[in-house]
């Protein structure tokens, strides 16, 4: 009898230990495993500025998807409003869908909605309360773009182009990446950084 309870105790202890170990390791690996170029982006669900939930799967374009972390109050993001609106219009016809994500804790959904209407951002903008998706992408600034190919694989990450001032653009990194992807070529420069406003995370 004694022996049996000792075995039971041992079993219970080892099960508890295993559960503890799983708990300890799983969140750590998840947090570290930010979406990387070359990897398929896992699905997520976020509400838009009206509160309607969307999954990434439901927003994907047949030929690819562009996710851009945007802001209402960041002058850099705002300098790109027209370019983002034009990008969305130009590529919608080619099967690539543009989606905005606002992860700034300082910018409420109502403000995001009003801003999009005022600035002519005629594409879905998701509100990422708690910056869960920004964390998953390790997105740090606005406007920071992520391009997924038709299979949902991340093929480009970084700036939209090389100049905040539209007149000074000499390399359109994001457009070049989309064009290469549509043509079935690899993206020449899959990660190109730019300066922008830090995403205002929930601390």
């Amino acid at each position: 009898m004694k022996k049996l309870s000792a075995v039971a105790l041992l079993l219970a202890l080892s099960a508890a230990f295993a559960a503890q170990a799983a708990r300890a390791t799983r969140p750590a690996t998840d947090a570290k495993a930010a979406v990387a170029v070359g990897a398929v982006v896992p699905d997520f669900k976020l509400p838009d500025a009206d509160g309607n939930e969307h999954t990434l799967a439901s927003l994907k374009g047949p030929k690819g998807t562009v996710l851009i972390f945007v802001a209402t109050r960041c002058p850099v993001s705002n300098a790109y409003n027209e370019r983002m609106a034009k990008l969305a219009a130009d590529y919608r016809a080619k099967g690539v869908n543009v989606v905005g994500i606002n992860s700034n804790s300082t910018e409420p959904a109502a403000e995001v909605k009003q801003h999009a209407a005022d600035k002519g951002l005629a594409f879905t903008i998701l509100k990422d309360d708690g910056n869960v998706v920004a964390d998953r992408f390790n997105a740090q600034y606005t406007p920071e773009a992520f391009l997924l190919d038709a299979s949902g694989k991340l093929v480009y990450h970084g700036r939209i182009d090389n100049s905040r001032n539209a007149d000074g653009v000499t390399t359109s990194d994001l457009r070049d990446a989309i064009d290469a992807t549509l043509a079935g070529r690899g993206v020449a420069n899959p990660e190109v950084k730019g300066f922008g406003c830090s995403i205002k995370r929930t601390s």
Partner: protein
Amino acid sequence: MLKALLPAVFAAFVLLGGPGGPQKQGPPKRAPGDAKPAAPPKVTEIDEAALKSLLGAGAGRARPLLVNFWATWCVPCREEFPDLVKIRGQYAAERLDFLLVSLDDPSDIGKAVPEFLSEQRATALPAYLLHAGDDNTAINLVDPDWSGELPATFLYDRSGSLVFKHKGRIKPDELRAALDAALKDKPQEAGAQK
């Protein structure tokens, strides 16, 4: 003998600036609430190569180096400025190099940038404006883990190693702790005499 030395002692006294010792550098004292700004400082335009040599990557340096990347259009950058100016005041220039690198548009180099620095009384800090041929290159040469978000603050020790970085508005206590650690790790008592 003592009498013979007196003129020399007197001369030394005068040279050292009288009873107050060496003249302190820095902006003149103002009464609290006196918002009169200092004269706008000169802001120097630099490219990636100049930034690289300012950072002196990998090379030994006389003092640790603190670099703050900012812009007048960046709200948290503006908000953290009083803390940066306070920190500049707390660490003598002979112990710590502290540079400001603005990411404003080059057209703002003559007005918006120096005027803001003047308002903030940040005129004692060497100020640069980065006009890089390619921002991606500039960001990566500072820190490959930096995405380019502003503000961003980096501390290099005497060996030129990046020992502290903070993206977003600084936490003054955290930055002071990093500065104290970098200053403690020093070959000689620099800046001890005042």
